[in-house]
């Protein structure tokens, strides 16, 4: 009894600040109306689907091919982003040079530029007649309307995620360890791989995961440069779009469900990695 009273008091004591009711009320109402209720529709529709039907839809050759294109391109693009992301973050944090602030501001461009605009601009640049595409065309390399084009668009869309994930970690990194490593005679490369890289690795993985998830789901910037040849350069989001245009709602939902599960697994892994990294650093 006594305990309960204290507990009650404690509970009330925690909410000194007024407005809990209206705040959580507004939050939950808007969240339900805009996110939860519409999201429930996909669950409702797919629950009407037997496992067998679901399996039949998502294992059609065309669908498997689209998944392969989407996942493999996003994976390669995220890897490329990790490489350039580390270089860019390093340069922006450690070096001083004229124009650095502009460079830093430009990193965010893929977030600000509408994806459709980025899509047609990249296509124009990298097609056989484009400024950059024509150079590669001479060497016999086609970029636009091939998988290379898809990867390129995904690199464009994913780069800010990696840079912005690594930058704050590098900024906080204590120079002492590097100095110690250098004093002990480690080469620059060795210092980087043995001292700095392990520190930024969790942040890089986070950036990798975000870029990967974005790449898998990306539509606007990829659809123009992809060429959309079935089995070769057709991405999964476009396949959903096509199914919707043909009013094949069940097919679209099943294909979407696999993508949803994939992105949730990626995000879950990121969260686990982050929690793990926090644990290590706090120890």
């Amino acid at each position, binding site marked *: 009894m006594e305990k309960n009273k204290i507990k009650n008091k404690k509970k009330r004591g925690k909410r000194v*600040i007024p407005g*809990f009711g209206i705040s959580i009320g507004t939050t939950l109402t808007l969240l339900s109306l805009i996110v939860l209720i519409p999201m429930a529709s996909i669950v409702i529709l797919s629950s009407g689907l037997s496992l067998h039907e679901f399996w039949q839809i998502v294992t059609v050759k065309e669908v498997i091919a689209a998944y392969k294109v989407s996942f493999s391109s996003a994976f390669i693009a995220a890897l490329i982003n990790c490489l*350039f992301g580390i270089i860019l973050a390093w340069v922006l944090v450690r070096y001083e040079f004229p*124009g650095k602030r502009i460079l830093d*501001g430009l990193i965010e461009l893929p977030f600000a530029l509408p994806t*459709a605009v980025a899509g047609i*601009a990249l296509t124009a640049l990298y097609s056989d007649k484009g400024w950059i595409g024509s150079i590669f065309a001479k060497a016999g390399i086609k970029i636009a309307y091939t998988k290379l084009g898809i990867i390129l668009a995904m690199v464009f869309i994913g780069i800010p995620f990696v840079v912005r994930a690594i930058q704050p970690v590098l900024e906080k990194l204590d120079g002492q360890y590097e100095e110690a490593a250098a004093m002990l005679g480690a080469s620059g490369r060795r210092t980087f791989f043995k001292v700095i890289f392990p520190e930024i690795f969790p942040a890089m993985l986070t950036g990798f995961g975000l870029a990967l998830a974005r790449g898998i789901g990306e539509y606007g910037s990829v659809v123009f440069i992809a060429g959309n040849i079935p089995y070769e350069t057709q991405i999964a989001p476009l396949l*959903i779009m096509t199914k919707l245009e043909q009013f094949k709602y069940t097919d679209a939902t099943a294909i979407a469900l696999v993508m949803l599960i994939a992105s949730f697994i990626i995000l879950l892994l990121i969260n686990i990695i982050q929690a793990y990294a926090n644990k290590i650093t706090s120890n």
Partner: protein
Amino acid sequence: MSKSDYRNGQVNKKINTTKAILIAVSIIFILVMLVMPMIAVITYALQNGIEAYLKAVKDQYTIKALQLTVIATVSAVVINTIFGLFAAWTVTKFEFRGKQLLTTLIDIPFAISPVIAGLIFILTFGRIGWAYDFLQANDIKIVFAVPGIILATIFVTFPFVSREIIPVLNAQGKDEEEAAALMGANGFKIFTKITLPHIKWALLYGVVLCTARAMGEFGAVSVLSGHLRGKTNTLPLHVEILYNEFKLTDAFAVSSILVILAVIILIIRNIIEHKAKKAGEC
């Protein structure tokens, strides 16, 4: 830098070469990947002269698309700001069960493909949706109409404002608000006098990010629009239509409007970030 003590000449030279190479790689990457596309848009937009450019920009469908883009963007910013403020206040000022779940649910729109975002609204309000009969009975159109576009835009930008405010409020704690409440201030007063000054830059930052994403949203809107020219066309959708009709100059001319808006947003974003750093928020 402090590391100069132990550097002998050779190491110094090596470090300088590495530095030069890395800076060069960074600049080339940004020029080729990020700057060139913008230059390409402007160049192609102007390739048939300034008159052709102005004609494409002043075309009535372009103006109508711009109007719809503005409507959708403003709706998204208003709704998401209201939501962001309430959600951030709820999550950071109170303790309750299921808080972790709530923050995870808010982030859902981040994790899913824009095409899937469009799909869920089709599955809710479209012909096979469970709300279809009700909408039909009340003569409300959502799918392939303006409300659908607005809804999709709100959805994809839903967590943008709350996400920027929550970390700032978490760092600030709730002592000041509690003190004010104990002294008898009401909720509104506490919010405007104490909380708002702390989060003003983060709030602005969230609004800017929300604006950028809302005006450029393509996938989700594309699913829901039905591509009715002059009715359910936003600027990015209009670009797509022109591009697919091989009216390339027009497509790039309309794109140039969005490029200019993107650059303005980027500049504002940097100013805000700079000010917020100065104010010690971030």
